[in-house]
């Protein structure tokens, strides 16, 4: 277990450096390609060689200068600021979705017949088809029209856009939690109902444990590992969706920073500035690596069956 952890951790710095270089190289080499595809741009399209520029950047890094964004804000500060906003949003959404998902999954397990209740399969099939940005727009429309009619356009009870750790959180969190909740619920329900078919459950029942107890404690512990992995993949999906959700709800987070750095419509001198993209990519890769490491380590810790090799 420890060896596994150490091995993964040893790999992490290599990957981060690689990600940094990749981000730099990507921003560096793609800017002329994009401006060449634009017949009306005036950018110079020949490039100096990458490596000297990159080492230049690295030496600046060593001195603590991460470069500046278009506002002149230092990159480190900008990333710290947006990360707290985004990760806070995601943290709240994830916690809610884990709680609700597991709860629904447990509720949906049938006692008499094997399998998951129909309502859960049905809901999850539909739920998987609703991407979060669609849900977000539905929510916005819904609340918009409700409040238009309810308060006759005077005020909106729930703010639609904007940043704030208060009522501003409601709509974004709702939009973000919908799909992960449904997915976690489906996975939990499916795994749990399969688990309850096993013999030790029958044995426990005959020994006198209550079904609820078995379901919520004993059988559930056996399936924690796959649920963890589902949570990890939902988290990854949430981070990927941030770009659109933050744009919709005007939430100043990581997604908006990425969008402004990568978006072709950005002001020409800021488009794809290599230090910013390198830093962003490094941060993103670090987040994903951390999630991955956490999920696999925890799952191996919890489930001895996965410890068998490596």
């Amino acid at each position, binding site marked *: 277990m420890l060896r596994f952890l150490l091995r*993964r951790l040893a*790999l992490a710095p290599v990957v981060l450096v690689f990600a940094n270089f990749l981000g730099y190289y990507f921003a560096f080499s793609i800017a002329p390609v994009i401006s060449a595809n634009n017949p*009306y741009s*005036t950018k110079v399209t020949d490039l100096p060689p990458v490596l000297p520029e990159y080492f230049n950047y690295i030496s600046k890094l060593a001195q603590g200068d991460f470069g500046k964004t278009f506002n002149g804000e230092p990159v480190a500060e900008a990333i710290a600021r947006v990360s707290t906003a985004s990760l806070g949003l995601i943290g709240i959404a994830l916690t809610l979705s884990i709680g609700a998902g597991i709860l629904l999954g447990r509720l949906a397990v049938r006692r008499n017949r094997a399998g998951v209740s129909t309502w859960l399969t049905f809901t999850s099939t539909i739920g998987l088809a609703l*991407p979060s940005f669609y849900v977000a727009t539905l929510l916005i429309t819904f609340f918009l029209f409700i409040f238009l009619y309810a308060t006759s356009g005077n005020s909106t009870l729930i703010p639609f856009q904007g940043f704030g750790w208060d009522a501003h959180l409601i709509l974004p969190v709702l939009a973000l939690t919908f799909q992960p909740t449904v997915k976690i619920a489906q996975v939990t329900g499916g795994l749990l109902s399969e688990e309850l078919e096993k013999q030790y459950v029958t044995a426990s029942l005959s020994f006198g444990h209550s079904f609820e107890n078995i379901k919520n404690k004993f059988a559930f512990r056996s399936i924690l590992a796959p649920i963890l*992995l589902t949570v990890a993949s939902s988290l990854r999906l949430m981070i990927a*969706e941030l770009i659109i959700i933050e744009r919709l709800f005007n939430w100043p987070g990581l997604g908006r920073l990425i969008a402004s750095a990568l978006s072709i*419509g950005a002001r020409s001198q800021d488009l794809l500035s290599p230090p910013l993209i390198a830093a962003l990519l490094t941060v993103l890769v670090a987040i994903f690596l951390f999630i991955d490491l956490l999920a696999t380590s925890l799952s191996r810790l919890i489930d001895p069956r996965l410890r068998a090799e490596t």
Partner: protein
Amino acid sequence: MFQNAVKALRQGDKTAARFILTRLLENDNKNIKFWLWMTEAVESTNEKIYCLKTVLKLDPANAAAKRGLALLSKVTTTQAIPTTQKTEEELLFQNSRKAFKEGDKSTARRLLGELLKINPKNVTYWLWMSEAAESSSERNYCLQNVLNLDPENLAAKRGLIKLRELPPAKIIQQPQPLVNSFAPQKSALRVHEISSSEKAKILPRKQRISIKKINWYIVFGGIFVALITFIAIFGPAFAPHDPMKENYSLIVDGKIRTPPYKMFDVPGYFLGTDRYGRDLYSRLLYAVRPTMIMVLAVAGVRLLLGVILGLAAGWLEGRKGRFLESLLSTSLSIPVLIAAIFGIYMIGVDKGLWAFIVGLGITGWAETARVVSEQTRAVKTQTFVEAARALGASDRRVLYVHVLRQILSMLWMLLAFEISATLLVSAELGFLGYYIGGGVWIEILDFVTVNVEGLPELGQMLSSALVKISDPAALIIVGSVICMGVLGFNLLGEGLRRQMSNENLRSGNRFGFLTPAIEEWLDDRIFRPASIWVEENRRMVLAIGGLLFISLSGWVVYKTVYIPPIIAETNQLEVAGDHLWASERHDSFGTLYVDFSLDSQPEPIWNLLIPGGPSGRPVVTKDGILIIGGVDKTAVAIDPNGTILWQTQLEAAPIGTPALNAEGNIYIADTNGGITALDPNGNILWRAQVSKGRDATSGPIIDSNGNIYLTIVEDVYAVNPQGEILWRAFAADAYLEEPPRLSPDQKMLYLKNSVFNIETGQRIEVPIGSPDQYTFLDPAYFSGADGKNYYRLGHELIGWQLDGAEVKTEPGITWEHASSVLFTPFEQGVTPNKMFWMFYTTSWTDTRMIWLGSQNLLVGNYRFPYPNGKIIAVGEKGEAYMCGSNGAEVNCINIAPGAETPTWAIDINSREIVIGGVIVPGRLYVSVGNDGLYAFEINETSTP
């Protein structure tokens, strides 16, 4: 056991009862009860009589036996068989059964064979024979015979069902030995098919295939998917409007409305439009096809890569497994969006949909791989895998048979997930501005253009509809279409998963959802022979497979790695003789286009005074030698270093720019109405007096046949290379001071508003616009560097072509000139990339250069603060080289389209007026008034 026999008899299962009773009787030969029941159980009357007789032998007073015999003897008088023979038969039967008990199947078979010779219609014998048979084909034959004799025989049916579940060694044929020895009826053996309902009755309850239940998931999923497929294939045919056409003003109820149009607002655009007036309904119909193609292709690639790599990562142990695992987690950490952008742009965004498919497909397989690897790992630790391995199953078999089966059921869920993930990424890409195919440019305000998505695709339409959140109608509509598509696949996947997880998979069916009949046919006719053939020809199959794989991957690598040049090919018009500058407007077509750029600031290298001042621009031969006319009746040739090569005296003062023909001969028009021809060394070949006493008013141009054309006041003259006049035609009432132009196909000659047939000089009518416009709009025909005919009517540039006698015109390109310029352009042109330009200048106002793109897109509008502007050339990137003089200095610049400041500017300290200039690769030559010719060169080390 006896109870079972009684039960069986009561249920009507005589055969089972017989079997049981036979065994009972073997143990206890003298049990009357057994014999009595045996009587009930046996089939034929003879056997019944035998049993009853045996009872009577044991107990002569048995009433039941007596009664039974009495009954039977009435019926069976004709069927009485001599006892001896019967006993013989019975003996044989007994012996065969004994042989069975001892395990001696061959003896049993032989005995039974004898028995069947005696009595081929005995069902029992056939049943025992089926037990004794070695191969399943023989068994099948025996059982079929039983069914022939007794169609309701349950044992035979059960036996046949069991047979079907065993893999047949060969295709079932009638085994030869049995046929020969028994000489059955020649009539065809009816093979009994057992219907599933019968099966349901026969088989024990547990094995019963489930009663038909409607799988609603498949039904609804199938409907949705079929609907989406239908729209994908036939959708564009139903679209009422062109999805790319922008409608900026539509008249509704007599009022002009601007986009975006809401739903049901404008008749004919019933779902409304997007921000630029493009009809949403048509775009939706067009959008489904590329979306579905992209999504399914990407999902397929990702699933394939993911499953393969996930299986390997989960299964392999040791270093390989760890390596794959770390590769997996690394790929998982790289955000798909950035990798996708990288991939798409490296492949080339102009490849449109395929760039997106490849770019999205080779990234993002990591999610599937992660799920698959975890599942593989979980399955690997199960006991049944251990058991399989203990039984000797190879790794491959365990993977294929056990692990893959588990994963197959997850596949549909993975597919649904991949589909929505792909749509998400394409929406995000569209959101960020990376459109499929690069998008189209739309002008939204004066001089402001945006790049929006061109090819309609659902994800990208979604992102462009995200802008106005308070009017979410379009967003909801597009979202609903996406939702319906994904939902259809989800439902279908869930339904298929349910179908496949039913007993179908367990009973050996490959696909699970085909009917057993089809399944068997496929198995017998296709899969089994195919797999046998592959097994036998393994090497050849591997070789072919390897070749295919290598060629396929090579093609894929080639397609993705080879990046085509970014600049589009130009179909530039040929300059005869490859001269760098052949006549006044660079070439005889008058395009003023050069296919290179001077990006850096040129430095002055020399300045040469020309006797009398230059008469026009110089021309430059392909060796770089400049030839220019001097007003002092000279023609001068200068080499690139500034030294005069030769100087020839002419009869009259030259006018305009000389012209070079393919051989390098020089033709100069003079103010006395003549043309002088010189050879490249300056020797006069001839001088032709073209028009008596009237000045030529411009330099000549040469066509590819060497004929010379020039303007003399209001006429056009054509002269052949020997100096003879071919024709003369009247061009216009005005005093024309410019040379004519050739049409791109060199069949026509343009001069201002006239078109002439180049061979005869006959006027060709090309009516564009109306004659009363001509006075104010100063129209002119010209050739574009893209090889097309154009016409400038006022400030509008119109492409046209002649179709017989008809003129076909394209929509004109124009701009809002009213507040900027008072006069019509001095010069105009089209670059090979279809950028339109117009050059405005006078001697007393500033000069202006306008660039226009298609659909009236104003690309650039530059005000050059010098009068007396002369446009030198338009370069490869569309940049304009021009000079202007304000009496104190001369300024020459390179201005790129849309730029606010010139790329570079040269100041020439001269009070003269610029006459013209030429550029050649790396150099700029400007002829200025009396100050002669200035040469500038780009230094390699000069700063841009």
